[in-house]
């Protein structure tokens, strides 16, 4: 995906003030780096070069300091992504209970390979490392939400929900496993 022509790639004024508002929490501005990059990513769906330049000015760093940080952390993308970014955990505990099957299922259902975005710009698919949901696999994260104990049927419902409403009630709530734990005997 490419940004459309004429799209504004700068930080908005409200994004800038969200960044500046965090300064009092730290003895130096540099510490706001990760939060600033997150604000930039939330605003455009990815971190633009223009935004990195502006973050450098706000945080009194060189542009390359912003760039080297943005490229170190996997949650920042320097390229546009789909509206819903699906991240499947591929690490051992999830792999033991069906992570590879989950990736294949999503690839077939969405018609793309891991690392790609659907032509309509709705979904991006990638594999990631352990997301601390090992007992509840196979699992995936879509944007901020975790989806756990996945089956083919559940994935179909989640994708349909996202297409229709932009969100799904099947997202995990506060974590507690095993879930049976407090049910009466």
């Amino acid at each position, binding site marked *: 995906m490419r940004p459309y022509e004429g799209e504004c790639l700068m930080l908005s004024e409200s994004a800038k003030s969200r960044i500046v508002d965090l300064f009092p*929490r730290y*003895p*130096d501005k*540099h*510490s706001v*780096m*990760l*939060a600033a*990059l*997150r604000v930039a990513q939330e605003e455009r769906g990815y971190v633009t070069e223009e935004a990195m330049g502006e973050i450098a000015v706000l*945080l009194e*760093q060189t542009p390359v*300091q912003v760039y*080297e*940080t943005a490229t*170190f*952390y*996997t*949650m920042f993308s320097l390229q546009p992504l789909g509206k819903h970014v699906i991240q499947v955990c*591929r*690490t*051992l*505990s999830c*792999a*033991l*209970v*069906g*992570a*590879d*099957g989950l990736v*294949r*299922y999503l690839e077939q259902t969405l018609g793309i390979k891991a690392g790609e975005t659907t032509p309509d710009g709705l979904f991006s698919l990638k594999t*990631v*490392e*352990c*997301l*601390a*949901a*090992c*007992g*509840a696999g*196979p699992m995936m994260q879509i944007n*901020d*939400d*975790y989806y756990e104990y*996945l*089956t*083919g049927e*559940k994935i179909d419902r989640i994708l349909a929900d996202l297409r229709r409403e932009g969100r799904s009630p099947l997202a*995990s*709530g*506060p*974590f*507690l*496993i095993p879930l*049976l*734990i*407090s049910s*009466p*005997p």
Partner: protein
Amino acid sequence: MRERERELVNYEKILLKNMETPGYTGDLAAYERAGGYRAIRKVLKEYKPEQVIEIVKKSGLRGRGGAGFPTGTKWGFIPKDPTLTKYLCVNADESEPGTFKDRQLIDRDPHQMLEGTLIAAYAIGAKVVYIYIRGEFALGAKILERAIAEARAKGYIGKDVFGSGIGIEIWVHRGAGAYICGEETALLESIEGKRGLPRAKPPFPAINGLYQKPTVVNNVETVSNLPHIINRGPEWYAAIGTPKSPGMRIFSVGGHVKRPGNYEVPLGISLRELIDEHAGGVRDGHRIKAIIPGGASAAFFTPEHLDVKLDFESIAQAGSMLGSGGVTVMDETTCMVWAAYNLLGFFHHESCGKCTPCREGSAWLYHILERIEHGEGRPEDLAQLERLCGNIAGKTVCAFGDAEVAPILSTLKHFRDEYEAHIREHRCPIGDGVAALAAR
């Protein structure tokens, strides 16, 4: 459910008690109804900071992040000079594959963790605390922010904690996807807004930590223990578990077990009890082939090790480590070369790139395992793997180097014949290791 009830009778839960009570919401009112925020009040009223450190030393509490360093001793390294600024960082960057306990402690009982955080901050004289939570825990960060706001509104956190005249601010600092930031000095770099590259030690964070100031980094589970140690006394705590590894520990059990989950048990129970009694045993019709007892950085065990006691010393003596408490169980359908290959995929991806042996070595290890698993291994590959491992472990700035070789060296030790069969037969004799996705 029957087994479950028996276990509830056997061990009194401490950290999971509130959240396993039906209807417990985890908000401030619920936490206080359950007896919360009594310990910090007592600490502020009755104890000097040094006395809190002594109590924690006496309890024998050891860090729950992975290394198991005695918490009171760690605090004791902080200079007493009151004019120095000190920092406390709570490590909520839970990323060790197989581990999912801190996530539950954060999501379900955030005030327990915050009360412990206040106690630790008071003990070391920190006026500012950063909770470093992994970026993917968006829900956990929101829950913590809300809990902090509740506590701040009541004057429990802020300029005048419980009217004591002492100021303690707690801020949530979100990571952005980097396993290495769980390493304490990488965590400090990350809070400072940089790439998460571990620092050479010494100097240790207690002397030269965050912003070059004396700093303590404690794990979520570690601080969650503190209110209970204050309320019930260090002698009570020290009597649980084993003499050298006291207290309860939350083990995250996953993989091929019937009931994966977080189980809080006294340190020193056997691996067999944890897997069979608590996690329901291996899935029906199968038998255990291998167990990772303490997160992906710990060496693989075999069924011969099932009677090893789950405490820091016993596990180390048996050749692995208690680590993060993440227990991964694999049955006989699992190819050990594939398992090591999967984990090296993790380590290769997560190596921060600072030290050459780890950066280059993880790639070599990964690619050699890849070709062995895919039937393209060469007879000399096993010696090559061992040589590479010997050139990584102990030769890097942080413990990541030792961690990445553990899956290989331990599977080579216990399952060498499986590696040899891959090379001899030019294929994986077990199967492709791909577990299918359930339809429903």
